[in-house]
C-alpha cells in the first residue's frame, strides 16, 4: 500500500473543504472497497478524508412522501429499518443478498453505490485494463468474460457494476443528493448517475472531484410485491452473475431493473411497459441490442428465465 496522510472530519462541509485543500485526496467511509483496492495499489490516494463520522446516518421522510437515506447509513441498518422493510422491501432484499454480515456492518449507502467493478483483470495489475490504467487496453475483451457486460459496453471496457443495492434503488427510481467543494448541492437521478464506459471507462459517475454524496432519496412507496432474485455461483457471499429486482403490482404492471449485465443497473422504461405481457417480451425490450461473448451469452436466457420466475412468484 502507498503511504498516505489521514484526517477525520465531522461535517459534510469540512469534508469537501478538506478535499479542496488537498489534491489527490479521497473520502473513505466503510473502507471495505477502497482499502481493498489500496492494498493492491489499484487506488493510491495520498490523503484520506474519513467521512464515517460526519452524521448523514439517518433515515427520514421527505416532504413529498418519500424517504431520504443518509449517505453514511450502514447497509445492515438500512436493510433492518422498519420503514424500509415495510415500504421499500426491495432495498432490504437486495442488501441482504450482498456481501456478508461483517461487510454490511461497515459498508455505507454512498460507498455501496461507488464500489468498483469486480472484473478480475481490473484487480490484476499485471494485465492491461483501461479502467485501471487508461489507454492500456482491455484484457477482458477476448479474455475470460463470463461475468462481463452484455449491454452498454464499449470497445474499451465491458465491466459490470457489482452492487446489489443499486439494482433495487434503480427499480425504485432513486436519486442521489450531493454537495460540491463550492458548497453547491444538487440532485441526480440514479438513472443518470453512472457514466457509460465509451473511451473513458476510468470515469464511472457524473460526480465532480470532491463532490460528496450526502443522501439517496426514494419517491413515495409504490406498493406491490418486491422481489430481488440474485443468481450466483454459490448460495451466499458471492457477487451476482445476474440479478432481477422488481416491483410487481396485482394487475401485472411494474418496475424492473437488472444487475450484472452492464456498467449500471439496467432499467429500460419500455421494458416496464412490457411486463404485463410476460418475461419474454420484457426481456426483449430490456436487452435489445445486447452484445455477448461466447462466455457470457448465457446471460440472455438467464435474465429471461429469472424474470419469468420473479413474475410467477409475484402472482403467488
Amino acid at each position, binding site marked *: 500500500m502507498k*503511504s498516505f496522510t489521514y484526517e*477525520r472530519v465531522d461535517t459534510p462541509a469540512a469534508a469537501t473543504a478538506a478535499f479542496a485543500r488537498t489534491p489527490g485526496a479521497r473520502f473513505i467511509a466503510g*473502507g471495505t472497497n477502497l482499502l*481493498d483496492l489500496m492494498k493492491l495499489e489499484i487506488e493510491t490516494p495520498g490523503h484520506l478524508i474519513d467521512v464515517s463520522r460526519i452524521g448523514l446516518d439517518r433515515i427520514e421522510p421527505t416532504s413529498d412522501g418519500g424517504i431520504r437515506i443518509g449517505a453514511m447509513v450502514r447497509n445492515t441498518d438500512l436493510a*433492518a429499518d422498519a420503514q424500509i422493510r415495510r415500504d421499500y422491501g426491495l432495498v432490504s432484499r437486495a442488501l441482504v443478498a450482498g456481501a*456478508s454480515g461483517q461487510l454490511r456492518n461497515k459498508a455505507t449507502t454512498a460507498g455501496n453505490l461507488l464500489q468498483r467493478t469486480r472484473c478480475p483483470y481490473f484487480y490484476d495489475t499485471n494485465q492491461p485494463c483501461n479502467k485501471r490504467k487508461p489507454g492500456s487496453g482491455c484484457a477482458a475483451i477476448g479474455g475470460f468474460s463470463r461475468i462481463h457486460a452484455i449491454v452498454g459496453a464499449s470497445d474499451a471496457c465491458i465491466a459490470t457494476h457489482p452492487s446489489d443495492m443499486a439494482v433495487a434503488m434503480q427499480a425504485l427510481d432513486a436519486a442521489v443528493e450531493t454537495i460540491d467543494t463550492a458548497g453547491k448541492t444538487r440532485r441526480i437521478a440514479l438513472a443518470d448517475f453512472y457514466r457509460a464506459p465509451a473511451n473513458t471507462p476510468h470515469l464511472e459517475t457524473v460526480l465532480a472531484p470532491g463532490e460528496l454524496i450526502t443522501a439517496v432519496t426514494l419517491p413515495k412507496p409504490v406498493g406491490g410485491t418486491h422481489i430481488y432474485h440474485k443468481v450466483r455461483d454459490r448460495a451466499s457471499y458471492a457477487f451476482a452473475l445476474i440479478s432481477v429486482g422488481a416491483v410487481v403490482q396485482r394487475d401485472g404492471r411494474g418496475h424492473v431493473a437488472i444487475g450484472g449485465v452492464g456498467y449500471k443497473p439496467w432499467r429500460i422504461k419500455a421494458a416496464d411497459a412490457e411486463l404485463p405481457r410476460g418475461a419474454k417480451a420484457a426481456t426483449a425490450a430490456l436487452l435489445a441490442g445486447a452484445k455477448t461473448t461466447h462466455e457470457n451469452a448465457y446471460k440472455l436466457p438467464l435474465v429471461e428465465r429469472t424474470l419469468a420466475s420473479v413474475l410467477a412468484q409475484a402472482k403467488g
Partner: protein
Amino acid sequence: MAIPEEFPISRRGLLAGGAVSVAAVSAAGSPDARAAVEKAPSRPPTARVAFHVNNTAHELELDTRTTLLDALREHLRLTGTKKGCDHGQCGACTVIVDGRRINSCLSLAVMHDGDKITTIEGLGLPGNLHPMQQAFVEHDGYQCGYCTPGQICSAVAVLEEIKAGIPSHVTADLSDPPSVTRPELRERMSGNICRCGAYSNIVDAIVDVAGVKA
C-alpha cells in the same frame, strides 16, 4: 548505528551513505548540509489512535496504513485474531467493534478512535471460556482451528443480530422478526469460510448456545 527495518539497505549503499554522513558532519551548518538533511527519505505518515481492546485502554502511534487486524496482532500482540485473506473474503479476522462484527482486515486502525473492540481473547480465556467457545469445544466446531476465532466472534454477534431483528437473505417475511433456525445460521455465518469444512459442527455449537430446538 540502528538501521530502520523498513528501509532495506545494501552493504554498498550503507558504506556510501556512511561516507556522505561523515561529509555532512564535517560541513555541519553549511546550506549544503541542510539540503541533504531535507532530502533524506521521510518516514511514512503516522497518526495517533486511542481505543479500548477487551476493556483495556490503548493509545498507539501508527503508520496510517495499519489495519485494525495488524494493530491487534503486531502492535498489541493479540494474535488470536487471524489473517486469512486480508481482503474481506474469509472472515478469519472477525472482531466485534461497538457490538458489531466486522472484518478487521478491511478497516484502518486510525479510524477506530474511541471504539470498544472485543477479540477472541476478550470473549474468554482458558479456564473461563465464553459459552460459545465452550460449545465449539464440545461440538468439535473446528479441525485446524485457524478460522475458529473469527467463527466464534461472528457467531456471538449473529445471535445478537437475530435478537435485534436484523433480516437475512433467507428470512421468509420481512415483517416478521427472524428466528434462530439452521438455515438462518448458515446464511448469516457465510462470511466465515472454514477450509476444514467444520460447518455442520459449527452450526450445532451455535444452536446449542442459542438454546433452541433448530
